[in-house]
């Protein structure tokens, strides 16, 4: 008979995405074998992430203060704003170390077949944010699928009349990629979006 606390831990871990019963058991045994402070730190970290992490009041990324680090950083260029679907996309762009502007997280995309319209996204907040006139360029970095395109096109329709420069992230072949192995859709997009040298 397995002790109840261990069963409960396995059951909770098995609810995590990508974790099956066997992996949950292995993780639970690892926690059991680890020094006492590891379990205490793990449980405290889980509690804190729920209690302290919330949305930034300006860009709607994640933060544990009122404004996130990106919005507080005075070295970042406030004239350029990159609009992303999720916080995970923001982190992916940050990993490039190329973008030095600020962000706005929509928390989703327009999805006509799922009934997701503009009111369910942080679009109203984006427009309010642009009211102070500091932003000059918006980079629309939604995914290159039909929902991401619809969102980018909808935002363009709203933002262009405001006199802002609106750009869309490029689509095409990945760096180091091989034409021979590229999929048809990406290759077609790469051809149509070719640039003159």
């Amino acid at each position, binding site marked *: 008979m397995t002790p109840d606390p261990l069963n409960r831990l396995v059951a909770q871990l098995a609810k995590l995405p990508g974790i099956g019963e066997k992996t949950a058991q292995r993780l639970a045994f690892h926690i059991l074998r680890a020094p006492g402070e590891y379990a205490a730190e793990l449980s405290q970290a889980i509690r804190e992430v729920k209690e302290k992490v919330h949305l930034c009041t300006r860009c709607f990324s994640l933060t544990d203060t009122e404004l996130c680090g990106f919005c507080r950083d005075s070295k970042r260029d406030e004239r350029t704003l990159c609009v992303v679907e999720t916080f995970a996309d923001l982190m992916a762009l940050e990993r490039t170390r190329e973008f030095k502007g600020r962000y706005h997280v929509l928390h989703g995309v327009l999805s*006509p*077949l799922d*009934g997701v*319209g503009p009111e369910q996204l942080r679009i109203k907040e984006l427009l309010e944010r642009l009211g102070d006139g500091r932003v000059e360029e918006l980079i629309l970095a939604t995914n290159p699928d039909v929902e991401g395109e*619809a969102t980018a096109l*909808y935002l363009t329709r709203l933002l262009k009349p405001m006199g802002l420069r609106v750009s869309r992230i490029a689509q095409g072949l990945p760096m180091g990629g091989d034409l021979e192995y590229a999929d048809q*859709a990406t290759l*077609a997009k790469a051809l149509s979006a070719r640039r003159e040298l």
Partner: protein
Amino acid sequence: MERFADEALVLSTVDYGEADRLVTLLTREHGKLTAFAAGARKSKRRFAGALEPYMRLRVQLVETRGSTVRLDSADIVAGYYTARAELSLIARALYAVELCRELTREHEPHPELFALLEDYLRRLDAKEAGPTSLLAFELAALAHAGLMPRFDACALCGGPPGERPRFDQSHGGAVCEACSGRAREAVVVPTELLSGLRALQEGVRQPLSPELRARARGVLNVFISHHLGRRLKSVDFMAQVGLD
């Protein structure tokens, strides 16, 4: 397990589990099918870019024990990329695929509906299909599904709709003034609306005015919702972003 090839239009997709995707396809020969695309979200090569709504594909499918089929491979025949570059075209294409998805049952072949949707998407991509063409497409799709609303005669007495016609979704179309007492949900509609919609049913490509289009949209929305038992989601999207 039998393997077969077919042409397909992607109607919708939904994520399944960690890495897979369920794809609803309208195939030319086998009708609507739900296909299980293993690893579709993780693999960047196998189905990359192909499993997007309103892609036209050449697919290899494998029958399984249940009603779902397995998607082995998908080659893009037509991506309709122009129809993905304008919001109004995206909205109309998604409405068309949602309507076809809701009007059909799985494993029932609808080659005419496939041809109709394929032709509509091709014209949309060529920028030859405006808002009136969407109404014409809807009427033709409803006719294929056996739900053709009647605009040429009163649905109750069979007589002419008259000078003050009504439209009643539950009786399947126009209702004359004399019969309107038997059609409680009927709403008064202009005679030009009935003649305009009848012309579209007969294949006349005459653009309707914005006012008539708006009335036609309302009438068809009510008719489709009544017969499907729910309102199409992409209709709300079109209204929210101000498109028809």
